[in-house]
């Protein structure tokens, strides 16, 4: 009898103790960072904190290699196997929203009022995704190089003009100290071209697509400004200022550090390693080619899958993850830009630290890539056109062909939903 009482007590107690865990609804989440130890550690910590902070939801994560993540998501969408929470690259978000992979975030946009614009994924007037960091590109240089070549240090308020930038490249080339004046990372023909180089085109006054309608690239990618950009772009390679498309893949990691290049166009994810190797490295703003100085914006963001049966739970997690302490943790861990000024203040590199310049660059110069579902195709067309021009193709013909290809894609997709 006594034993029975004890057993009954144990069963009741364990049932009561387990009750909150049993009541938790499981949310699945997919993430692009498999193999990234630092990101995984921070994200797992956030998930662990979230799961213990409340009794309604429990999040489980499945990480994928970044290079194949989008393909995995597309296949899962076809098979009706999407998770609740999806990680999505900023410029790809409109495509996933349009294709029905994502649903609008059930969170008031005002909750992210102080986030950098590039970290918010808005499509068709609705907020679909929010990023826990942003990335920025800058012109890496040595202060000693600027001094030796007699070059003015450009600032956000007074960036180099086209003439000053050309003069800087000429001076570096004439010095004979460098194999090339400029490293652009030309071997990486994935999305790097549209992210890193379309801001040059935009600074000339052109664009990948006409953003006023998103229904054509005519005029934007082959107009006068784009032609001028194309000729300038080609001159970088024909003039021997930068290595072409067969550039050594290692150059982005070692070329500038090893003194092979005077300047390097690179992202802030390489900034920490470069600072460790180069004492007097300076991160310069993009040159102004006439229509303002621009850099790309928009990195990985979290959204809610259209198939999720628990969007309110997924939204709870995204709000939880968007706390300043986690934004700061990501920034300290991987060097990327925290989305809010308050989070920046909590970081070691952005609260007046050596990378603070990237926050300012992102705030002042950043322009998101074309916000259209067609971007995924347009980026590939743009990449091919720039590679062809770098390899000596006729500028006007190449840009016209790119416009035709982009317009045909927009037409075959009935305008991608742009009204």
């Amino acid at each position, binding site marked *: 009898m006594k034993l029975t009482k004890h057993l009954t007590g144990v069963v009741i107690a364990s049932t009561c103790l387990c009750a909150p865990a049993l009541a938790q609804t499981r949310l699945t989440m997919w993430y692009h960072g*498999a193999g*990234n130890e630092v990101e995984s550690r921070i994200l797992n910590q956030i998930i662990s904190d979230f799961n213990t902070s409340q009794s309604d939801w429990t999040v489980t994560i499945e990480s994928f*290699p*970044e290079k*194949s993540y989008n393909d995995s998501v597309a*296949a899962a969408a076809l*098979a009706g196997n999407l998770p609740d929470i999806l990680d999505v690259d900023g410029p790809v978000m409109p495509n996933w929203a349009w294709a029905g992979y994502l649903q609008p975030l059930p969170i008031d946009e005002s909750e992210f009022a102080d986030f950098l614009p590039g970290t918010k994924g808005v499509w068709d007037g609705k907020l679909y995704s929010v990023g826990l960091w942003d990335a920025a590109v800058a012109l890496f240089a040595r202060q000693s190089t600027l001094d030796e070549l007699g070059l003015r240090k450009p600032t956000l308020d007074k960036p180099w003009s086209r003439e000053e930038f050309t003069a800087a490249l000429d001076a570096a080339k004439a010095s004979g100290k460098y194999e090339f004046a400029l490293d652009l990372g030309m071997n990486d023909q994935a999305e790097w071209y549209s992210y890193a180089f379309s801001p040059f085109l935009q600074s000339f006054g052109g664009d990948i697509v006409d953003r006023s309608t998103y229904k054509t690239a005519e005029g934007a990618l082959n107009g006068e400004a784009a032609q001028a950009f194309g000729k300038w772009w080609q001159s970088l390679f024909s003039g021997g200022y930068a290595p072409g498309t067969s550039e050594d893949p290692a150059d982005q990691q*070692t070329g500038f550090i090893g003194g092979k290049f005077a300047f390097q166009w690179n992202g802030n*994810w390489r900034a920490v390693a470069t600072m460790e190797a180069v004492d007097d490295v300076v991160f310069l703003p993009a040159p102004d080619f006439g229509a303002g100085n621009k850099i790309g914006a928009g990195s990985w963001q979290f959204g809610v899958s259209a198939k999720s049966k628990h969007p309110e739970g997924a939204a709870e997690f995204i709000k939880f993850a968007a706390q300043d302490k986690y934004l700061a943790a990501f920034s300290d861990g991987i060097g990327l830009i925290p989305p809010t000024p308050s989070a920046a203040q909590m970081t070691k590199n952005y609260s007046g630290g050596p990378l603070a310049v990237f926050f300012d660059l992102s705030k002042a110069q950043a322009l998101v890539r074309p916000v259209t579902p067609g971007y995924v195709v347009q980026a590939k067309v743009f990449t091919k056109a720039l590679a062809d021009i770098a390899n000596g193709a006729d500028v006007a013909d190449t840009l016209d062909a790119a416009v035709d290809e982009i317009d045909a894609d927009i037409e075959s997709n009935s305008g991608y939903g742009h009204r």
Partner: protein
Amino acid sequence: MAVNPDNYGLRLFVRYLVLCLIALIFIFPLVFMINSSFKPDSQLLADTSSLRAFLPVGDISLNNYFGAFRRAPVGLFVLNSVLVTGTTVLLSLLICSLAAFSFAFLRWKGRDVLLSIVIATLIIPFETIAIPLLLLVSKLPWIGLDGLHWGWLNTYRVQIVPWIADGLTIFLFVQYFKALPGELIEASRVEGANWWQVYYRVVMPLSGPVLATAAILKFLVMYNQYLWPLIVVQQESYRPVMVGLGYFFQLNVAWGEVMAYLTLITVPVLIFYLLLQRAFIASIASTGVKG
């Protein structure tokens, strides 16, 4: 015509020299991979412009291997690939040889037409059927210990079953079986053997070379699988080695760890080849088929 021994020796020397040079071209990437797997990234990248890239010199350590195991569950990926590949190879040898036996020795209506259709599947790229196949396997039923399930995604069987039978393997067996002496089969039948006994007591014991060829070809196809597991497996616990390679390509690529991972996943391939080396070379001589 008399052979000048001196000229013969010289010709032999030149021939071997040329063959050795060609062999070096094939071996260099492997030597580079293995040597680089022991070097830190800075040295690895600096060495690429010199012959040092092919030599185990400088700061040599196992750090890249430790790093590779920290970054990804390498053992799990290799185990998954070996399991999927091994099972598929064994089932493929059985099913395809049985099918080929039927095509080669049995007389049945529509045999030649069906064989033509099977061979015609060789010209269809897998990419063209990947999506329909994905939709199919995502709806297939399966009865497990915990009852009936719908959908095969995130399993070993989805990586195995669609790859068991293929036109090339059946064709290889058919060609080999047709070259076997017909008297052997007839004699077995006269002695009272049924077709099953002819298959496993007469034909299969004579089929070592084609079994080795088919096994190696299937092994290479399965071990190098990328697209199919990428779209049907979302859980890390079922991922094979080629999808796992993606873990090493971050914004800052750890090249030394990439080389260490590649070296590790090459080991099962080399072991498999060495085990079947003699039979494979014999099969090249007898079937004319190379991997």
